């Protein structure tokens, strides 16, 4: 099976405190640690496991700048065969639909049986997979937490729904699936693995390579525009315990006792 996995380079929120820049135009990006979107690691792992079971190839693709190449290499070190970088100034300021439009054009340059995305990325929008499927007129299933490839024409997939229940579906190939965390255990990649793929050539496609005009992607085409970033004042917030660690411990125990938090 020929599998394409869409991956995004994002600031790692478990490593960083996200700060809004002074003018509110962006977040402070200078000191951020970036990594591959958590959900996309699960998608790449799933693709590799499918390939190992029934053969085929895994290609990872991203819309980003030169620095996004590092996430492609990381996923190739996991076991993806090919990487494709989609990079052009014209892509800047794209909204979700713009990103999906760019990915669609790249999908049509290849021939894929299965396209995987993460369920969501740092914007928490969970939009690109479903948009891409609709543009390609392929069936779609989101939040997939199990994939059974025993049939060559259709997959049996589980979707994780409310309460952790699993909705089973049959979906015809080719199709697009968005992958939920927990579907597998993504393999570890060490420095050595990344070094091994350091010199593998990664083709870059620009807007014109993909036949995309400025009216289709980028800031000009975006119907959704981010105006600023801010940190909201939500209600009163928590009463923060102050003082030395010992004082905090003592205060906390007092509160726990008062509220029935210690049996």
């Amino acid at each position, binding site marked *: 099976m020929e599998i394409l996995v869409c991956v995004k380079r994002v600031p790692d929120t478990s490593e960083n405190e996200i700060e809004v820049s002074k003018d509110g135009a962006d977040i402070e990006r200078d000191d951020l640690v970036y990594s591959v979107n958590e959900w996309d690691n699960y998608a790449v792992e799933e693709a590799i496991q499918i390939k190992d079971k029934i053969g085929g190839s895994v290609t990872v693709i991203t819309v980003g700048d030169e620095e996004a190449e590092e996430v492609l290499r990381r996923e190739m070190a996991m076991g993806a065969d090919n990487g494709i970088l989609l990079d052009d100034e014209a892509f800047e300021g794209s909204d979700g639909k713009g990103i999906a439009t760019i990915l669609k054009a790249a999908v049509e340059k290849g021939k894929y049986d299965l396209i995987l995305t993460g369920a969501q990325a740092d914007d928490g929008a969970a939009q690109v997979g479903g948009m891409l499927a609709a543009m390609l007129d392929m069936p779609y299933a989101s939040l997939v937490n199990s994939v059974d490839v025993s049939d060559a024409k259709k997959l049996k997939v589980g979707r994780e729904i409310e309460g952790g229940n699993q909705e089973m*579906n049959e979906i015809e190939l080719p199709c697009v699936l968005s992958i939920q965390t927990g579907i597998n255990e993504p393999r570890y990649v060490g420095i050595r693995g990344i070094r091994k793929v350091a010199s593998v050539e990664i083709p870059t496609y620009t807007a014109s390579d993909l036949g995309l005009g400025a009216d289709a992607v980028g800031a000009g085409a975006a119907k959704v*525009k981010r105006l600023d*970033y801010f940190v909201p004042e939500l209600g009163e917030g928590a009463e923060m315990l102050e003082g030395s660690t010992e004082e905090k411990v003592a205060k906390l125990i007092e509160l726990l006792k008062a509220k*029935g938090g210690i049996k």
Partner: protein
Amino acid sequence: MAQFFAYISHGDGVADDAALEMITAAKKIDPSASVTAIVTGSGPDLDKVANELTASYPEVWKFNNDALAYPNAEVIRKALVNNLPADCILLTTHDTLGMDLAPGLSIKLDSAYVADVVDFEGLEGSDIKLVRQEFSGQVSTHVKCDAGNGAVLTLRPGVFPADESKSASGNVVDKDAGDVSTKRKYLEVVVAEVGDVDITKSEILVSVGRGIEDQDNLEIVHELAEAMGADVSCSRPIVDAKWLEKSRQVGTSGLTVKPKVYLAVGISGSFQHMGGIKGNPFVIAINKNPKAPIFQVADVGVTEDILEFIPELTEAINEAK
């Protein structure tokens, strides 16, 4: 002004809570908005929901079709595309059905799409100004959405107050879904397994998140819980890593808990996690990041490294006994 619609899901003949939240949301976009509700399904449950909604919506579109008996987003999307006017504003919920349905719907309607909206700040011409969050709630953004050619907007559940006025006395309109053939077939729902401890019944929970960093460190959480007489629950990443059973997960894709006291350690406070905490417990959060979103919703916060703080707390509780 464009027509407003609200796609409303339902179960056991009762509309989802979001049904009344969507009215408030629509009015925040445009105070003069008149919203048409849409429900899909089959059988008596559907009739019941449609009738219930006439109290709140002047018009309720009812799609009764066997293919819609289970809410398969691929089928619902086709029914909606076959019926909705191109430049309408459609609201629905940012939940597992909304995520499945809405992004593709916006493409098929050629309209703008914004997911997981937490507030609206009105309308300027055809631009809707709204608020959403990024980086798991660490920052918010103002967003301008050009709805000139329509918009599909999904709302975060629980943030818009319910419109309880129920004075619409509307009517139900039967709609024909049209061709809804799809390439995805619903088979069945497999219900989540029950665990050794039923956290939905626990009075005190110590809930652990990714901040615990390593499986071996879970030991200190178990020790704290034992000292308090609490049960241990967790956020999703702990289950994804297979460190604890799924039956310990609190949140929209886990269990809904109703304890008296909820002590969250190393949890950032995503809405999917907090959505599983009901009954207004006393929430205490320990997190090393003073800006962690959980401090906005907790009653009491402590900015500390849990790996150091938890053992001290445990010791002090045991000593005090």
